[in-house]
């Protein structure tokens, strides 16, 4: 039918608008992690509060745990810190900290000042472990299951919403 071809530009435009509308609610800067569903990259790093001791990822197999990437120079980390303290106090899931590209002295001082929610923090001075985990912005939080597989990544500070709606239910699920 002749009329159809004249409507093609309109049809294309309608599809375009639909996509643009959906796009309004997305964040183009967010980089999703390709590690979801893959084994957590291995590490063996000294602990921040006990420098003579090393922590490796295999030490943590058999339990569900959170990896929280933080640093004393990170401003947004202060935002989520109270939440982390509450989470740690509730003893639902152990939180391990990755002190990313930080001076250990400054890291310890920061924890002393703001509170230490971490079962242990490990020191990643040159950022290599961070790169392995695909860290590109601090803070970030990973949920790792009993087999050592990464199940979720939170980009940016933790929010109460993210905790209640995504992380805690997932942890409960994985704990079964």
């Amino acid at each position: 039918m002749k009329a159809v071809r004249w409507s093609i530009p309109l049809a294309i435009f309608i599809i375009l608008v639909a996509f643009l509308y959906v796009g309004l609610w997305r964040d183009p800067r967010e980089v999703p992690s390709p590690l979801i569903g893959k084994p957590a990259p291995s590490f063996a790093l000294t602990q921040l509060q006990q420098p003579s001791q090393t922590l490796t990822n295999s030490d943590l197999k058999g339990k569900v745990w959170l990896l929280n990437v933080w640093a004393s120079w990170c401003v947004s980390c202060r935002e989520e810190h109270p939440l982390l303290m509450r989470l740690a106090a509730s003893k639902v899931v152990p939180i391990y900290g990755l002190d990313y590209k930080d001076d250990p002295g400054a890291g310890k001082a920061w924890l002393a000042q703001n509170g230490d929610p971490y079962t242990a923090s490990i020191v990643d001075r040159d950022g290599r472990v961070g790169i392995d985990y695909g860290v590109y912005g601090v803070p970030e939080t990973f949920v790792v299951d009993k087999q050592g597989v990464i199940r979720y990544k939170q980009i940016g500070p933790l929010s109460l919403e993210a905790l209640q709606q995504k992380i805690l239910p997932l942890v409960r699920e994985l704990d079964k």
Partner: protein
Amino acid sequence: MIPELGHFALILALLVALVQASVPLTGAALDAPRLMSVARPAARAQALLVALAFGCLAWAFVSNDFSVQNVATNSNSELPLHYRFAATWGSHEGSLLLWTLMLGGWSFAVTLFSRNLPPPLLARVISIMGLISVGFLLFLLLTSSPFERLVPPAAEGRDLNPLLQDPGMVFHPPLLYMGYVGFSVAFSFAIAALLGGRLDATWARWSRPWTTVAWSFLTIGIALGSGWAYYTLGWGGWWFWDPVENASFMPWLTGTALIHSLAVTEKRGAFKSWTVLLAIVAFSLSLVGTFLVRSGVLTSVHAFATDPARGVFILAFLAIVIGGSLALFAWRAANVGLGGNFSVVSRESMLLANNILLAVAMASVLLGTLYPLFLDALNLGKISVGPPYFDAVFYPLMAPAVFLMGVGPIARWRQAPLPELLTRLKWALGVGAISALILPFVLGRWSPLIAFGLFLAAWVFAATVASLLARVKSSHRGSILSALRANSLSYYGMLLAHLGVGVFIAGVTLVKGYEVERDVRLDVGESVAVGRYEFKFLGVKPGPGPNYRALTGAVEVRKDGRLIETLKPEKRIYNASGQPMTIAAIDTGFLGDLYVSLGEPVDGNADNIAGAWGVRVYIKPFVDWIWMGAFLMALGGLLAVSDRRYRLAIGRRAAAVAAATPAAAAAD
């Protein structure tokens, strides 16, 4: 007081725009001359009111009125006067007001240069431009008023983004917007033609100068943006296929197709519905570009502070304006009718190919720009589409179009005998081939890509000359001079614009093929040699600036051992924002640029500036040809528009039309 006056002026402008958008349009539909005559005064009043509002905002900036939120966020009392003025459009709200001002300006111009337009056509054109003004004014007043007060007023402003404290800032946005907004005239003509049901060669003749002027401004605006990035951003690049750059490039590609398509419609009455569609698409892309920059949908260096609510508003506006136009097109374009016929080898067929290639190029850029968004919206992951994609797709599409650019002007309308074309162009082909084969060796290195680029550039030059020669030869005038004078300005404008393309291609090919970069650590007194040049680093010294602290480096440049210049790259820290900026030092030359910028002090210690530094040195052969070429293109466009026949023939033709067809006008 003054900001409130500005705000009030905007509200009044909105009311007038509502009148402008509705009354003349109704008048055209009902054939009521009284209603149609509202068009001119309404458009002029609206334009003046917006100008008043803009003046009020500019006043607030220039007089450092930090009780206005926008001024406090984007300006600073230490800012030099011309940047305080330019800061008026340095924010989302201000630049939107600039857009609206330009729209008013173009509407005003249409009321001035339209004495011979039939009243229904003028009424419709003005009304549609009024409709667009309504949209922008509503957007300004409802979501983005630049006149918001800050209570209590700030003692000092936060400063204009240092990247914007530059002459480029003073010119790039206004010229760019002149282009974007100028396409609204062609758009309005197209919609008016669809509404009125009359689309003929005369319509094309009216639309053409408006479109060409808008296109010329857009060309300059884009070139300025590219040049600005080159010397401001510090790493010698001039085009990144960044989403916002693409947002300006797509209307440009469409506009180029449009001016060529209008030529065919004007001269041969062909491609009518395609021309109308192009006019709609060109302006639609301007609007989509506005959306992309302000909605947060794509990341870009250019993006203004984002807000989904604003995005929804613009998207709704887009949907109404563009969706409405395309719906009108779907409904009415079929009635527009077919035009002249032409053979397989003819100027029309080549212009058609040019249009198709440009349209495909535009669609490809659109695809690449929006593809990450598509995938993300469908939850198929996040990818990036950058220069490797665009370069791979764009150049192969443009190469045949550039080749055709040499053939088109020589081809006859309707039927161009192939043997004639070959005869006229064979030596142009020869020049192209020889340049491709020999020049690269002379310049230092042969590669297929360089050769191909040089072939195209030389081909364009030679074929353009061939076209002029053919004209002069086949003219019946006695002397060469009178033969040259017999050609219209419009013809020379085309030649100049095409030459500009050739210059541009030469610049791009040569700079990409032969540029050299060195990124080195230099101690004070140490040199680096690049080709025939030697760059000797003399150290960095601190010094003050008007609103920044500067660290100025000195680099002596020697060519073949002889000192030719001392370049002074800078690193600045702006007082108000603390933001650092790298200012490159460039020795600009016709045959190439020497470009030096500072990296970081070697020890990473900000206090140790007197020691070794990282220094970036570039040699960029023929890079300025890129912008020279663009400038020539724009100049060609403006030259073409100054052709006498646009001023005379419109009067003569329209008088005849008006006298002969009162019945036809009544049937509208």
